[in-house]
């Protein structure tokens, strides 16, 4: 591998400490994001996708959330140990985020234009007029006439609000764009538009993107690489085509088997038996073993290490001999 990852998460653990117990939201998570690529982070509700995204900008609400251990390396700098003031210079400027629900992620009493301008003024040393001009340009970029600069979020439809949010997140030309289920709150026709827009802008602004979703269709449309998350850890990481053609982890295989295929006649879909484990009380060993059709004795005891199957395809499963055992 010659490319160096732009952002790398190493053995990250994030816990939410509550009165009812410790929620182990992220367990030993590894992730790499390369320059210019779109990485899809896929998982069920509660798998820790959003927490991962927040941890990447160190925005995990504390308390109750706590980054227990691990590193988030952005261009070699560890964001977990960075000073808050330095971190603020990165947030929004070099790494920015699109939130799930555009209805609530805009300030209801600030005009949309001012909200775009806020980020520009925070990070770029420009005067108000220049920033306003640039904010107007950003509105045009996302397909909203700039005459609407002075309007408030409630005067926009959901899809347009999400465009505004995208404009805010791209206003400082970030290196990394984290999109946390950007289309979940939108209806299907608007979803397609917004995804198309994001894809175009990603190329135009030369940004790497982390696309968080639970929709494998969205992944197929926009992503280059895919990471499958289960119970707070990435269990399989591969190029999109590899993952779709030859999924390796039993959970990934299960996911694909539970999607209806229009080209085949199948009597019944094969769902994955069981539910996501309770994050306050995770199973021992591999967290997937109670639901795994191939569970072995070792799965109950030992958390599997990373196995590289090929250059950009790795998996965490005892079915495949771990890297160090091969050597």
């Amino acid at each position: 591998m010659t490319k160096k990852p732009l952002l790398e998460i190493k053995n990250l653990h994030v816990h939410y400490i509550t009165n009812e117990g410790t929620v182990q939201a992220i367990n030993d998570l590894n992730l790499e994001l390369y320059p210019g690529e779109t990485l899809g982070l896929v998982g069920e509700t509660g798998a820790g996708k959003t927490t991962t995204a927040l941890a990447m900008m160190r925005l995990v609400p504390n308390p109750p959330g706590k980054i227990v251990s691990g590193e988030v390396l952005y261009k070699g700098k560890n964001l977990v140990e960075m000073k808050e003031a330095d971190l603020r210079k990165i947030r929004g400027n070099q790494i920015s985020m699109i939130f799930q629900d555009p209805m609530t992620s805009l300030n209801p009493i600030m005009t949309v234009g001012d909200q775009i301008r806020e980020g520009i003024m925070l990070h770029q040393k420009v005067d108000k007029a220049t920033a306003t001009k640039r904010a107007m340009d950003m509105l045009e970029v996302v397909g909203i006439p700039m005459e609407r600069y002075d309007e408030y979020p409630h005067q926009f439809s959901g899809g347009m609000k999400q465009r505004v949010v995208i404009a805010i997140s791209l206003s400082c030309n970030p290196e990394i764009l984290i999109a946390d289920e950007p289309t979940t709150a939108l209806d299907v026709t608007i979803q397609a538009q917004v995804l198309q827009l994001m894809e175009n802008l990603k190329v135009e602004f030369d940004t790497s993107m982390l696309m968080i979703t639970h929709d494998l269709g969205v992944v197929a449309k926009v992503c280059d690489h895919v990471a499958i998350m289960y119970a707070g850890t990435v269990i399989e990481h591969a190029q999109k085509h590899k993952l779709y053609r030859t999924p390796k982890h039993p959970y990934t295989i299960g996911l694909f088997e539970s999607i209806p295929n229009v080209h085949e006649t199948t009597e019944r879909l094969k769902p994955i038996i069981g539910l996501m484990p309770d994050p306050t009380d995770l199973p021992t060993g591999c967290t997937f073993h109670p639901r795994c059709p191939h569970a072995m004795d070792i799965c109950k005891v030992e958390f599997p290490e990373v196995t590289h199957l090929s250059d950009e395809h790795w998996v965490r499963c005892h079915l495949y001999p771990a890297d160090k055992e091969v050597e």
Partner: protein
Amino acid sequence: MEKKNNTPAPTQQVAQKRNQWKEVWRRLRQNKMAMVGLAILIILALAAIFADVIAPNGFDNQVIKDRFQTPNSTHWFGTDNLGRGVFDRVIHGARVSLSIGIISVSIAIVFGGLLGALAGFYGGRVDNVIMRSMDILLAIPSILLAISIVSALGGGLFNVMLAVGISSIPGYARIVRASVITLKGQEFIEAARAIGANDSRIIMKHIIPNSLAPIIVQGTLGVAGAILSAAGLSFIGLGLSPPNPEWGAMLSGGRDYIRDHMHMTLFPGLMIMATIFALNLLGDGLRDALDPKLKN
């Protein structure tokens, strides 16, 4: 960091942005009741500023032979027990009462608002320390608190404002804290943090403007309360000293004669009422004008 340069097509219209306050003013103007309130307040304020012109006799022109006159052509609001024109005193009193009402409420809103915002925003220990001290203040009846502050600092206009202001801080702190706590969990605050805004910016730009509506309502009502508290202080002799006209003091001064000479209490009372009425109308209108969701 090297920035990529991909400015989109230049736009012909250069940043020509409508002023947000102009927008608020435009919406306020559409509200007739608010404009009535504003008109009354402007009249009162002008009366206070030009008191010497409107009521050239001054507030302490005692003409004993003219005492207890009912309203007539020379003394529009009648005269009091010392033969001073009630009209003259009411006009001069506007200076004192309006400034007490507005300044003491401003003190309370600024400090109460800030403390409440800090408590709600940071939570935990900060919240505990601030709100428990507020509880201590709340535990003492506000008039008693004002009395003790005035007796410690001495009388005089400014000390009265301070005393009345301090004793109403806890109320504002509680209101602001409650709305800040609900706001804090909103996604747009998280989003503001994600674009790199720091705490003070988030509080000043996103949280306080969003929690303004209840403060404005409470504040306009509070002006009335402040005028009355100041009156209470004057009544027990801790506020302004007697010859100074102050609506509350005039009310309590006329109390002994209310049976036979009710004009002595009626007119200062009407002035307080008009002020409060006007402030409430304006406050309601302002709240609506500041809320973009109610636009048109």
